[in-house]
């Protein structure tokens, strides 16, 4: 019970859900006691018989009836040898949560029964096994969680999964997808990350469609790490984004995820579930291919957006080995003085970067998100190249570049080797040609 102080004393012997009689301001109210979602003291929340909740300052609380809890029914799930075996791993987020409809409390929903109960259509597509890895809002994840997911995916593939679906919070799903793309090498089956932008309690939630399409994708022949989410505002299709070339570009829309600089691998229509390929440059399903897991990570990397008027202290304070610069335009930072006291500080930014590069690695990306870095065009860029800033002529998203440096530094102690790795295309993290899309 999340009541405290005086109210807790008043509620002695009463449980959440019990029918109570509350006297407040001289009036008597009857209703079920609800938990408090917010910390305002001195208030109890009642659910009236009409279904409405109200908050009251109580003078007296009397218990009338104790809540009887029903045990949820267990579903029996049959397996069908004709169907593919798909494993769903829960890594938290909106999609893997459910609401207590009486109290409004959000809880993790992670038994296979619950997932199938939410989205019965997936059971028709495949034999589904599901388990929880962790329950967290994705913004709290660290590279450690990426590596745990990679390890568990490997375990399932070795055990014979024909495809793996990872239910994940959407905020940083594209970081995880980039990591898995790099760590799971020679993948023989699809690995699909999926999330939801609207909460699962509502009938309009996008999780049903996203999850159904994700299971369909996991049964497909595209043996890549992908993100499966809505294509537009309508419920008529999802797209499969390449794990290293995707980004969350909207706070709340269902189609928040967008492929950057490439087309998605495929589109899946809903409800027909017809899969339409949009590209053909992907690895085909081959269960006999032997998966190699390169699961090292080094957290000593920073991702810094450079901005006008940036102070050198920011760079000086970085205590890390790797730096991803989110530069301006083609790949620039403020570094030139025009003789006044303001722009002269830019020289100190340059000096700070120089100092950093003595022991660390810096990779240029662009805050324009779309397009290729080219440090050959302006003097600023050439000076940066001279300093040893990497990333020239690449079109990695800043997030993918960050994940790659974390991964590269984790898999090699040799800085020269890491530098080479950053310019080696491992999992489509950059393209060679800028297609006119």
């Amino acid at each position, binding site marked *: 019970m999340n009541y405290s102080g005086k109210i807790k004393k008043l509620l002695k012997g009463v449980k959440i859900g019990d029918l109570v009689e509350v006297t407040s301001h001289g009036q008597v109210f009857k209703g079920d006691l609800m938990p408090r*979602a917010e910390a305002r003291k001195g208030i109890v929340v009642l659910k*009236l018989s009409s279904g409405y909740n*109200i908050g009251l300052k109580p003078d007296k609380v009397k218990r009338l009836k104790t809540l009887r809890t029903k045990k949820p029914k267990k579903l029996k799930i049959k397996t069908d040898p004709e169907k593919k075996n798909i494993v769903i791993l829960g890594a938290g987020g909106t999609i893997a949560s459910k609401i207590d409809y009486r*109290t*409004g409390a959000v809880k993790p929903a992670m038994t296979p029964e619950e997932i199938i109960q*939410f989205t019965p259509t997936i059971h028709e597509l495949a034999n589904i096994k599901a388990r929880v890895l962790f329950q967290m809002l994705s913004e709290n994840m660290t590279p450690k969680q990426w590596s745990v997911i990679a390890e568990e995916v490997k375990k399932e593939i070795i055990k014979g999964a024909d495809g793996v679906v990872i239910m994940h919070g959407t905020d940083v799903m594209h970081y995880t997808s980039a990591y898995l793309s790099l760590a799971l090498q020679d993948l023989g089956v699809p690995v699909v990350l999926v999330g939801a932008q*609207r909460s699962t309690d509502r*009938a309009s939630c996008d999780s049903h469609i996203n999850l159904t399409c994700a299971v369909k994708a996991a049964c497909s022949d595209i043996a890549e790490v992908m993100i499966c989410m809505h294509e537009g*505002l309508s419920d008529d299709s999802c797209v499969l984004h390449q794990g290293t070339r995707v980004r969350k570009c909207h706070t*709340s829309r269902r189609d928040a995820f967008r492929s950057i600089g490439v087309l998605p691998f495929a589109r899946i229509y809903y409800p027909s579930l017809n899969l339409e390929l949009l590209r053909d440059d992907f690895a085909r399903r081959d269960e006999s291919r032997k998966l190699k897991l390169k699961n090292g990570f080094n957290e000593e990397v920073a991702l810094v957006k450079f901005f006008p008027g940036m102070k050198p202290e920011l760079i000086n304070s970085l205590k890390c080995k790797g730096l991803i610069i989110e530069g301006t335009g083609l790949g620039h930072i403020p570094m030139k003085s025009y003789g006044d006291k303001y722009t002269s500080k830019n020289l100190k930014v340059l000096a700070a970067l120089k100092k950093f590069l003595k022991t660390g690695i810096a990779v240029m990306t662009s805050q324009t998100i779309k397009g290729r870095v080219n440090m050959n065009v302006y003097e600023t860029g050439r000076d940066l190249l001279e300093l040893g800033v990497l990333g020239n002529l690449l079109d990695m998203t800043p997030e993918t570049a960050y994940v790659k440096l974390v991964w590269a530094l984790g898999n090699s102690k040799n800085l020269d080797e890491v530098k080479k790795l950053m310019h080696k295309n491992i999992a489509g993290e950059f393209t060679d040609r800028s297609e006119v899309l």
Partner: protein
Amino acid sequence: MKCGIEIHQRICSRKLFCDCDATFSDNPELITINRLLHPAVGETGEVDRAVAFEASRSKVFTYEVKDNTSCLVETDSEPPHEVNQEALITALSVAKHLKMFIPDELHVMRKTVIDGSNTGGFQRTMVVGLGTKDSVIPTSQGLVRVKDLELEEESARIVSRNVKGTTYDLSGLGVPLIEIGTHPDIKTPEQAYEAALYLGELLRLTGMAQRGIGTIRQDVNVSVKGGARVEIKGFQDLKDLPKLIRYEVERQESLVALTKELTGYKLRRVNVTEFFEKSKMFKNKLVMGLVLPGFKGLLARKLNPAKTLGSELADYARAYGVKGLIHTDEDLKKYGLVSEFTKARNELNLKPNDLLLVIGGENADEAVSAVEARVYLLNDGVPEETRIASPNGTSVYARPLPGGARMYPETDVPVIKPLTNIPAIESKASRVKELKGYGLTKELIKELVLSPHLDLFRELTKFKLKPIEVARLLITVPKDVKKRYGKDVSVLIDSQLIDLVKLLSEGVITKDAVPQIMAELCDSPELGVADVAGKYKQLSDPELKKIIKKFLKKKDLNTKQYMGLVMKEVRGKASGSRVAKLLGELK
């Protein structure tokens, strides 16, 4: 009978949970969005019966997004913003006026609605006031207790519906609504009318009530002895209320009486496609039939003056998207199906007393199941349900009554601590007294007292114009403009009216010019009042004299005729009294 009413009034603030215009727009859509709704199973494994019903006929929902009346919030692509303060204050002031109990915290709830009229699959609503022993509505037939007051979102309006799905217009979704419900204390249809009138007037006294068709709706809950609670929604003219209640009472009483006549019966569902495949009406269509043993003549029986049992059953079929049903109590000649029915009756070995009804179309199977279930329910009298009022005074079946299992907290909006210093609503009596003090006529007072322009009127009386002229400008002149020029002046904003009164009080324009200026402003909202009024500026004495002299050249006319000619030329630019005066001087 027992009867309670619910009043829903649209409020003219911005939308309840975003900053869109709170109006139903008639503009064309900019884009459309297609959505599906999946009913969520609650933790108890329970799906509300109204929700289950809607799910059983769930299809694609298409939403039209228009102009500045909808944004990502209405498309369920962005969380709600904070509750609109103007709407909340209005609701609180009404609750206070009705001496209701205002909770220490208001909790916004999600009420599950999956007919597609809410993009999220729920409607946001909150209790703002609970009735106390002092919360009563006085009527000539006794007091009616007020039960509760909610502030909630309006739902989207249906544009079209077919077997594939429903199209909704998002412009009205999220318009704030105040709902006031009474206890079932009402004993006669006339008392219901009085109580509804009282609440409607109270809401208008807030000055925040939207006006026009559809902006206020009344729902009634009716039950008779042996009957059940039936909720009737969707009628807009309060005058229809007594008739609607009378008809519903009759319908329930007829159904209760029918129960006593019926003895055990077993229905037979049959596929009758083969008997009808040659008919024009059912060509290439699935046709399902239902045999009702011993029902001959019953379907033609009137439940109330506007409804037979047959048409009642047809409503259940129509809820599944079919056109209706045809049965052997009807004149089959008008459908051209006499031989088909005869053949079917013979092949199915029906007895003379048996009744056959048929339904054709894509959803015929579901529709026949619904009718079958309803016929079995005739044994129990009146089922609890929600019905929609129809223009002929009766109502049609819409869906089962929702239970309590469909309300849960809206977690995207923080709990609201209501303001305590809410301004009370001025009473009608004190307003009438005030307006009398301005020297207004009875007719003007009657309209102005409930007008949303009352505050504007007060502001405008600060100018040098007579209050009665100000009142006419707000009440009478708009009607005149509508009649003469066909323009709706409600598009004019307060600042334009203020400018107009300023020009009038400074003598720059005359009141004769006002209707024309208003009409022109309706057409060209981009023009300033002064620009338009410039055309109707008062002529100076020398200018006016020059014009009068021109007409005086015509001989042998009387003063009235001269006046007429001059006024025709200078209307709006000089008052009649000035013309008469100068004419007298010059003649």
